């Protein structure tokens, strides 16, 4: 008797929960569909993939004089621009690393090598999202302009500052309005890492003479490019993307420029 009662109770509760879940999911779906026409001037329409926003420039936001003029387009166009930038930065930093090695700035050479690897990771990460959006990643690789290591560090700092303060924040705005999680993740990760690169370049410039001896290796996250200059990593997972620290790449040798 008791057993059949409890069996019935389980069935009733199960049915009730299923009905509740169905109503909730159906309600949420209708709510989702219902919001689109109700918001003619809403954010969704203003920056959707299907209807790209009017091209805008954000040169006025650039913190460095002579920074390139930024064209903000759709998420796909922005990712293409970011892919181009990261691919060129990779090549440029490898050339800077070789120059630093030649001039005897060994620590700076390691820094450029690590940054080059991080930029390569950013480029690959952007490329994956571009492909997901139906595009083909393309980059116009230019021959890098290599000067003295001090000038190269200054140029690198300028490039990173432009990316972290202007380019990525503008691209992120569009990706966030698009609610594109993949694009937000890759742009956000790159922006965070460019900030680290800028700080590392600034520190190297502040102690240029100290760059002549190797004091510490660098570590690069294989997923987001998180770059750390330290003897050992003091975290178990990447603070940006959660990749285990034991998967980080140790940079203790200068890479050959390709």
């Amino acid at each position, binding site marked *: 008797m008791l057993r059949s009662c409890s069996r019935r109770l389980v069935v009733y509760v199960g049915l009730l929960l299923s009905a509740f879940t169905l109503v909730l*999911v159906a*309600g*949420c*779906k*209708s*709510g*989702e569909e*219902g*919001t689109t026409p*109700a918001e003619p001037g809403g954010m969704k329409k203003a920056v959707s993939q299907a209807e790209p926003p009017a091209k805008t420039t954000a040169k006025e936001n650039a913190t460095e004089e002579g920074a390139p003029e930024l064209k903000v387009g759709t998420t796909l166009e922005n990712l293409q621009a970011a892919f181009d930038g990261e691919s060129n930065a990779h090549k440029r930093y490898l050339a800077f690393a070789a120059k630093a090695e030649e001039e005897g700035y060994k620590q700076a050479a390691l820094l450029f090598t690590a940054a080059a690897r991080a930029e390569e990771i950013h480029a690959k990460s952007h490329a994956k999202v571009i492909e997901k959006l139906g595009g083909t990643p393309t980059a116009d690789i230019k021959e890098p302009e290599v000067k003295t290591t001090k000038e190269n560090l200054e140029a690198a700092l300028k490039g990173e500052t432009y990316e972290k303060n202007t380019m990525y924040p503008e691209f*992120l705005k569009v990706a*966030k309005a698009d*609610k594109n*999680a993949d694009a*937000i*993740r890759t742009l*956000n*990760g790159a*922006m*965070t890492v460019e*900030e680290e690169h800028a700080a590392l370049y600034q520190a190297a410039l502040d102690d240029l003479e100290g760059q002549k001896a190797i004091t510490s290796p660098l570590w690069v996250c294989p997923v*987001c490019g998180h770059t750390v200059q330290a003897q050992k990593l003091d*975290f178990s*997972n990447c*603070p*940006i*993307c*959660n990749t285990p620290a034991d998967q980080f790449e140790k940079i203790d040798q200068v890479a050959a420029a390709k």
Partner: protein
Amino acid sequence: MPISLPPVPKWEGLHPLVVHFPIALLIVAPLFVATGMLLWERTRAYAVAALILMVLGTAGAWVSVASGVAAMGLATVNAEGREVMARHQELAMLVRLAFSILTALYAAIVALPLFAKRLTPKVVVPVHLVFFVLYAGAVLVLAAQSHLGGRLVHEFGVQALM
């Protein structure tokens, strides 16, 4: 005015929707544990209710950590905010582990009568008191990590993908 229901959230945006459930369930559960202890000899219903709350709360903790990890790459924060986020994650994983162990422990307590039919208050009360001390420690960690989550939202402006 028509009711507009929220859209079905993406996995990366689920974190703020799920985190409050385990907090509430796991904080309410000890009230049922205490009632279950007091009425141990008359009914086991409160103990079972406490166990259900703990199972649901712990399952919620697992979903919260997983959805939090999915959301972390989408958060734009400064270096200080990233440190807070790392600590938040570290404590959340500790909370998940602690409540998984506590739930298993309480399930064992609830199952005790199956193995020893005559359990006097002399055994039941001390066992519960030890459990309460351990549980209180886990609740403190839960409170600390929840506060860090609150700081991320209200101090560092972290927003979920909605």
